[in-house]
Every structure is written in C-alpha cells, then in structure tokens.
C-alpha cells in the first residue's frame, strides 16, 4: 500500500493538537487510500497536502488542558527528598555506614586537598615569586656530580658586570642562623641573615615602618614585626640602636610584617646588611678584593629582568664561575644555574646533576591516596545501594507500574545520593574542624579552614557534584532499568551477575587498603632501621651550646671549673661543628700512597682534648688526644671511613700533609687514632671520611655530658645559672644531641604518620562497607540459614559459609596488592643508601592482618545470623 507524503504527515503531527491527532490522521490516511484508488497516487498526494494544510488552523492546533495535575519540579523534588529522608531514617545502620564512611573519605580528601594547595602556594607570598631564583652550582668530584646552593663571593660582581642586563636585582646572603640581638639589658636570640640591600625589594616585604631601602647603609637592620615587639614592646623601634652578637651596633631602619609560615624565609626575623657582614670578615673582604673563587660559602638570589625567561638566563650564566677559577680547579667542571623560587619547595633534588624533582613526589603520592580514600567511600555507597537493590527493586517496580518515568526514578535515586553526600559533606567539615590542629601538627603546617575563600567553596561544590554523581550513578542507572513486570512477578533475580561488580569493588577497596598497610609498615621499618643504626657516640645527656657571641672567649676554664664543682656534668669539651652536622669540608690533603687522581675531600672537625671522652668515641686503634703529649696539636684522629677512603693499611703514624709541598704555612699531621664512624649528617647516607683536629681556637660549640645520676631538668637549671653568671648578655640556648638527631627523621616520620593515618582510615572505610555487605547477605539468607540449621548444620558450618565469600575476596586483594606495593616501595627505598629490606614476611603480616580484620568484621554478622533461632526465621512466611 502506498503511503501518504511523509513530510506532510510529520507537519501534521507537529501542529495538530495531540488529542485530535489520531482521528484526524486516521481520516486523512483513509481518504488518501481512497483517493489513490480513485484518481491515482500522484493526485492523491497533492490532495493529501491540501488537506493537511487545511487542518493547520487554530481550531485543530489549539491544545486542551490535561485533566491531571502537572506537578512542578519543586513539588517532585520535595517528594524525592521526603522519600529519601524516610529511607535514611528507616535504614539507620546503612545510613550511618554510608554517611559516616563518606564523611571520613571526604574529610581525608579535603584535608589532603588543603595540604596540596598549601604546598603549591608555597612562597607565593612574594609578589615576584615567578621571577626570583637562587643561583646554584653543579660540581664534579671523583666522577660524581654534586649540586649545592653555596657559591663563591665574587660571583655577584661577575654577574652584575658581565651578565647585568639579565637581572633586575641581585642579592648576596650568608646563611640564616640564630644571632643575639641586644637592646639595653634585653638579649634575645633571633634567627636572621645578612643580606644584600636589594633583597627586601625582591621579596616584596610588606613594610610596617620605614622603607625597603633600609639596608643601603652599612650599620642598619630591618626587623620583623615579632622581633620588634619582643625587643621594644609597643615603643617605636625606628632609629633605635641595637647590637648584634655583641659585635656590631646597628640602627633600626624598618619593620616588616612577619613572613607567613608557608614561605622559605618564614624564620627570617631580621635582616642585616651584607656589607656589615663583609666588614666583619677579613677573609671575605680578601676574597672579594682579590677575586678568590675557591671558597663556596654564600648564597646569591636574583630577580630576572622583565623580558628574560628563567631557562635562557640559566643557560647564559653556566660558565660564570668556570671562566674565572684557577686552572687546577677547572677539573671540578663548575656549572652555575638558576633554581627558580617556584621549584624551591617541591623540586629541590638533583642526582648527578640531573633535576629529579623532590618533595613533589610526596604531594603527588598523597593526592593519589586522597583520591583512593574518597574512591573507597564512594565504593561503599555504591555497594550498599546495589546490595539493597533487591529490596528497592519492588519499590521501583511499583513506581514504574503506577506511572513513574525512568527519568523520575533516576532523579529519585540521585536526590537520595545527593542528600547523603550533603550530609557527609557537613560531617566532613565538622571532622576537619576537629582534626585540623592535629593535622597541622603532624604535617608541620599552619593551615586554616578557608571559610572566606570562594575557590574553596566552588571546589567543594564541584566535589559534592562529582561524588554525588559518581556514587549515585550506579544505583540510579542500574535500579531504574528494572522491568516492572519481572520485578513484581518475583522472577527477578539479582544474584550472580549483579554481585560481580560488587565483588570487584570490594577487591579494589582491599587492594588499596592492603597496599597502604604494607607501605606504612615499610616506612616505619625504614625509620626504625635507620634509628637503630650505630651512631658512633653516646648521645644520652649530651648537651650542645653554640658559642654565638664573643662573650664566650676565654670562658672555657671558668665554665669547666664551675660546672664540675656544681656536680652537674661529667665532661665538657668544645667542637667546631655540632654533633649532628658537619660545618666544614676541606680538600688539599696528601699522604704517602695517595692515588694522584683522587679528589680528596674530608669532613674537617676541630675539637678540644676532652671531646672524645665527652661524646664517647669508640676507638678501633690508637689513642685519643691527650694533654700528656704537647705534639697533639699536630695529631689527627680519623674515622674508619677515612681509613678506607685513603686506602691505608696501617693508619697509625701516617703523616698527612695539608697544603702545597713548598708552602711555608703547610702543616703536617700524624694520625694517632682511628674511631668508629660518627654519624653526623644524613642517617640514610654512608658516613663521610672525617678528620678530627685538636685546636680550641676553631671551635663554635660547647658540649656538656650531664651527670646521669641527677635529673636532667635540675642539671640544666644549674648549668643555666652558671652560664648566666659568666655570660650575662648571652641568652642561654641549648640543644640535646639525641633530640637533634631525632629531627633528622622528621620528614620520614611525618610521612609515616600520615600514611599510617590514611591506611587506618582506608581500612576503616573498607571494613564499614564490608560490615554493611555482610549484614545484608546475612539478612538475605535468613531463611536459608534457618533451613540449614533445621537440617543439622552447626554454627561453625554456617559461620564458614557466610564468611567464605569475603575471605576469598580479601585473599585476591592480597595477591594484587603485594606486587603493586613491592614495586612502589622498592622505588621509594632506592632513594636511601642506608635502607631496610623488603622482606616477604611484611607482605604476609599485612595480608594476615587484613584477613583478621575482615573476619572480625564479617563474623559479627555471620555469627549473629548463625545463632538465630530457626523457628523465628522460618516462621515469618
């Protein structure tokens, strides 16, 4: 049969009122068929068109009002929310698991988000942070390229004269350190630095008083607001004279706002002029006036000229040092480059001269962990919703049968999931407010909750949307696809096929959790392993006091007598470096049998006679310095690493020459003792070869060995009174060697604590989900369990039956998690020279632990189901 013109038909359908369409179209088609028989198809089509156009009149186009109410979106939304709330209240356990789990997950993700934001915004306080850089250098010794911040003093002049158009500002600086600031009788120790006059401008310091040009004269100082308050209280500090370290008098020419915590210079609480430092140090004056390039002792900061980019300038200054050094130093292949301020915090590691990133790895890692924890919480939500789908299936069936569109069912489930997410979000904010101070402490941060920041709320909104959609999509789309006929008839079966994705999700959850557990164990073992490393000295009761003012000169003997008389110390000694660091490294040594190609480089430490006794050196060979031998000022104690480095068979008595052969100032030292390696620098690296000289003129630190028979606080009070008596204008600051040593693990311990915390949360969230799933299965199988019990199954049988499924999933997770954890942790450990091993038992422990927790979680539900009286469970039908 021929069909009427399709386009005309469509036109009619478009315009004609729906309640008239059927009869009109039917009549038109019947007429068409009749006309085709009467006048042929061609003319019939024409007629058809004419007839259709005849119907395009207001009478036929006008729509009639529907006899049923047409609820607005708001009405439906209210209904959705009401139903959702009722569902939440009705299933309290599920709701608690869902909201609680999701809130924890969101709190973790948001905390990590805040943390990442804080890390990424490091140093952005300075307006020109993207134009600032530190000049650094690579140097190659014994085939290894090392990278350092310290540069020679003449570099600034070189860059200004030969490369000047690349830079807007340059500023020299020494190293940030504690100094004594005195105003009248007030003496405080504050951390500060000597810096070039352009630095305040470069750092865009916010001046509260005075101007950024305050360092142009030599005897001036800029104070931070907190330092000014400590010294002067509310009085105006401008123009007042203060004293630094009892050496130089300076005039306050400005006060700047304290630098925020998330900046590199957060502890820069005063700035004195670089010129003042130079004026006090004759050797720096010499190296500047005579252009001596050999000593890398300072820092140089630059701000690029406006039209320059970092990489170009960095490449240009590459040979700024190499072109000037003496021929015998060319072998170190010094390369200068710029390290942009943007990268200071997160990308500050080099390996063999190659930039390998740095802290950014932790930022990425925690970002991933945050996402995973959130994912775990979303998985819980999805799993519980789908598990309950059989119950909700009837509801969906009835809704659909009564006339719900699929769209409405989808909306219903989405509004439910959004309600849960919003509750969880509120819960997450409460959690964050409760834990933020703890988190700040662990992560060493000063993060505030960003109440007033629009981006945060925008991000949160996005967060809610994504989480709501992510966790609501599966139930919404899956449940709404049920066919009402099947569901209501009861032939609908969600077993087997429907449980598969749920199982996959559980496996994902436990894989993540187990990986985190293994990671945490490894991190703690690595820290413990390094902490247990022999340090080569006895750090208990060892106090270190830095001699930062000239007041200490010549006080050693009186301090020694008074402290010993007070009976609080066993020994006292002095040293050039603290026990936990090496402040000086030197080359230029030679000895018999030295390999001519060896670039000798030693940690050089000057000590007094009693140093060995004070810190508890362990001698392998030879003897300690002694007052019995007047020649000991030319004696040398070396560590085992030095013996190995020098290639000595019989170290005792070996003569070491320091300096050129024909130079009259060259000294010859004799090795008198070999000690076990003293761990002073990084606990993850091998101990460096070290020389210990005996010379009290070079010392910077006083070491005290407290008497262990007296309490530490009592002893320290006595020590302080003795120091106050002899050093009235020096604030008494001291450090315990063991605490300082412990600080070397700060970043690893922080990492361990955070990873551990997240692992616990991940496991908690996963177990919450498992608990929900288990209770669901138990409930679903109530009848089956009843029948089994009646037929004679024991409680143990039933417990095994119900727990088996979950145990299998966790075992699968173990097998997936182990290789993943092995791969990443192996890579992490490779960064440490001194590291623990990845033993197989760690994986077993993590797996067994996870299994144990799983069984604990599941058993509560399965035992409850197994212990139920079958009479009760079977009666209800």
């Amino acid at each position, binding site marked *: *049969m021929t069909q009427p013109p399709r386009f005309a038909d469509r036109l009619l359908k478009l315009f004609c009122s729906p309640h008239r369409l*059927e*009869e*009109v*179209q*039917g*009549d*038109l*088609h*019947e*007429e068409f*068929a*009749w006309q085709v028989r009467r006048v042929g198809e061609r003319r019939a089509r024409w007629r058809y068109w*004419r*007839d259709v156009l*005849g*119907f395009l*009149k207001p*009478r*036929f186009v006008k729509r009639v009002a529907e006899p049923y109410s047409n609820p607005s979106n708001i009405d439906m939304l209210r209904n959705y929310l009401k139903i959702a709330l009722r569902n939440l209240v009705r299933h309290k356990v599920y709701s608690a698991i869902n909201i609680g789990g999701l809130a924890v997950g969101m709190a973790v993700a948001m905390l990590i988000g805040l943390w990442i934001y804080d890390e990424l915004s490091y140093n952005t306080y300075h307006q020109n942070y993207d134009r600032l850089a530190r000049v650094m250098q690579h140097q190659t010794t014994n085939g290894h390229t090392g990278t350092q911040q310290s540069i020679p003093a003449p570099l600034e002049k070189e860059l200004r004269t030969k490369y000047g158009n690349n830079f807007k500002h340059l500023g020299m600086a020494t190293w940030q350190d504690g100094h004594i600031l005195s105003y009248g009788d007030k003496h405080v120790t504050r951390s500060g630095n000597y810096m070039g006059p352009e630095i305040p401008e470069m750092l865009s310091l916010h001046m509260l008083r005075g101007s950024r040009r305050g360092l142009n004269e030599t005897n001036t100082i800029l104070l931070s607001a907190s330092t000014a308050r400590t010294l002067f209280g509310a009085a105006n500090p401008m123009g007042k004279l203060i004293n630094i370290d009892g050496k130089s008098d300076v005039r306050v020419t400005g006060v700047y706002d304290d630098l925020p915590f998330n900046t590199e210079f957060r502890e820069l609480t005063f700035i004195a002029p670089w010129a003042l430092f130079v004026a006090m140090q004759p050797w720096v004056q010499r190296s500047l006036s005579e252009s001596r390039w050999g000593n890398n002792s300072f820092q140089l900061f630059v701000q690029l000229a406006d039209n320059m980019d970092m990489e170009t300038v960095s490449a240009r200054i590459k040979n700024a040092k190499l072109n000037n050094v003496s021929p015998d130093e060319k072998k170190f292949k010094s390369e200068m480059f710029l390290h942009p301020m943007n990268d200071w915090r997160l990308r500050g590691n080099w390996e063999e001269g190659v930039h390998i990133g740095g802290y950014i790895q932790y930022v990425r890692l925690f970002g991933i962990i945050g996402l995973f924890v959130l994912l775990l919480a979303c998985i819980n939500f999805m799993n519980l919703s789908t598990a309950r789908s059989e119950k909700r299936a009837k509801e969906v069936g009835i809704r659909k049968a009564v006339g719900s569109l699929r769209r409405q069912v989808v909306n219903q489930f989405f509004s439910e999931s959004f309600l849960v997410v919003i509750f969880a979000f509120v819960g997450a904010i409460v959690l964050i407010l409760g834990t933020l101070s703890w988190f700040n402490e662990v992560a060493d941060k000063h993060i505030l909750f960003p109440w007033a920041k629009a981006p945060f709320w925008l991000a949160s909104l996005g967060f809610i949307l994504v989480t709501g959609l992510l966790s609501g999509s599966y139930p919404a789309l899956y449940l709404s696809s049920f066919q009402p006929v099947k569901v209501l008839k009861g032939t609908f079966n969600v077993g087997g096929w429907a449980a598969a994705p749920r199982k996959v999700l559980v496996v994902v959850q436990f894989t993540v959790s187990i990986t985190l557990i293994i990671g945490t164990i490894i991190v703690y073992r690595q820290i413990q392993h390094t902490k247990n490393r022999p340090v080569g000295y006895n750090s208990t009761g060892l106090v270190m006091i830095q001699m930062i003012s000239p007041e200490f000169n010549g006080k050693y003997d009186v301090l020694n007598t008074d402290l010993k008389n007070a009976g609080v110390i066993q020994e006292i000694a002095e040293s050039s470096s603290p026990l936990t660091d090496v402040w000086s490294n030197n080359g230029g040594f030679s000895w018999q049998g030295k390999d001519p190609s060896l670039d000798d480089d030693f940690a050089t430490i000057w000590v007094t006679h009693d140093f060995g006794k004070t810190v508890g050196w362990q001698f392998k060979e030879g003897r300690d310095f002694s007052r019995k031998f007047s020649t000991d000022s030319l004696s040398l104690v070396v560590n085992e690493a030095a013996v190995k480095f020098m290639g000595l068979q019989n170290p005792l008595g070996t003569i070491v020459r320091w300096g050129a052969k024909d130079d009259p100032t060259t000294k010859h030292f004799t090795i008198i003792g070999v000690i076990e390696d003293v761990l002073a620098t990084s606990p993850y690296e091998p101990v460096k070869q070290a020389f210990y000289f005996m010379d009290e003129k070079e010392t910077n630190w006083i070491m005290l060995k407290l008497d262990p028979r007296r309490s530490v606080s009592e002893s320290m009070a006595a020590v302080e009174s003795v120091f106050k008596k002899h050093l009235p204008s020096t604030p008494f600051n001291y450090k315990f060697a063991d605490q300082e040593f412990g600080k070397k693990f700060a970043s690893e311990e922080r990492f361990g604590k955070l990873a551990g915390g997240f692992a616990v949360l991940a496991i908690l969230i996963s177990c919450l989900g498992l608990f929900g799933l288990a209770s669901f299965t138990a409930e679903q199988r109530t009848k089956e369990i009843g029948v089994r019990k009646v037929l004679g199954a024991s409680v143990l049988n039933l417990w095994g039956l119900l727990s088996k499924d979950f145990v299998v999933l966790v075992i699968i997770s173990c097998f997936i998690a182990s290789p993943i954890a092995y791969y990443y942790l192996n890579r992490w450990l490779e960064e440490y020279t001194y590291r623990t091993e990845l033993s197989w038992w760690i994986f077993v422990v993590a797996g067994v632990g996870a299994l144990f927790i799983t069984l604990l979680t599941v058993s509560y539900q399965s035992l409850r189901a197994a212990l139920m009286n079958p009479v009760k469970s079977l009666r209800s039908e």
Partner: protein
Amino acid sequence: MKRTYLGEFEEIVLLTVAVMEGGAYGVVITHEIVAQTGRSVRLNQIHAALQRLEDKGMVKSEMGEPTAERGGRRKRLFTVTAYGRRTLQEIHEVRVSFWNRLLNPLKLTTSL
C-alpha cells in the same frame, strides 16, 4: 422560541450523521455529502463542523475500532444527541410549515 442557531452546512452535516445511524465519521460523512450534494467538501471543513456541533451538544462521539487503511488508528464515530434530533425536527417543521403555505410550489421552480 429560543433555539441554537444552526448554519446550513452544519445542518447538512448533522443530517448526514443522523442518516448514517452510528457509522458516521469524518471520511464517510465527506463522501456522503459529496455524493448527495455534489459540493466539493473538504475533510477539515467536516471536522470543524463536527467539532462545532459537538460543542453545541448536538452530536456526541466515541472512539471506534482501528482499521488497516487508517494505519491502525481509531476513528471517531458520531451519533446525534436527543437535542440534535429535536433541533433537526424543529427545523424540518419550520420548513414544512412554510412549504405548506406556499400556493404554487411548481411555479416557483420554473421561474428560477
């Protein structure tokens, strides 16, 4: 006597519906009128007239059975209501009374 005004075309449609006795719907009414009067009537006119008649309460309608040539669509079948019937009656009576008073009906026709 007050009664609803019925146009000439509407009257013819109403008469056709009455004649068809329950089998009346758009297409057959059209064909019947075309056959009986020789006018060129179009479907939309018939539908419009039927709607007006329904609004006035002279016909009522219900949906009938679908047929194949209508593409499975149902037809709307019209029947005359009592009110419609009485209206037709009255019109007829008015006309008859005029015709009766006409003395020579044949003359009138020839003069045309």
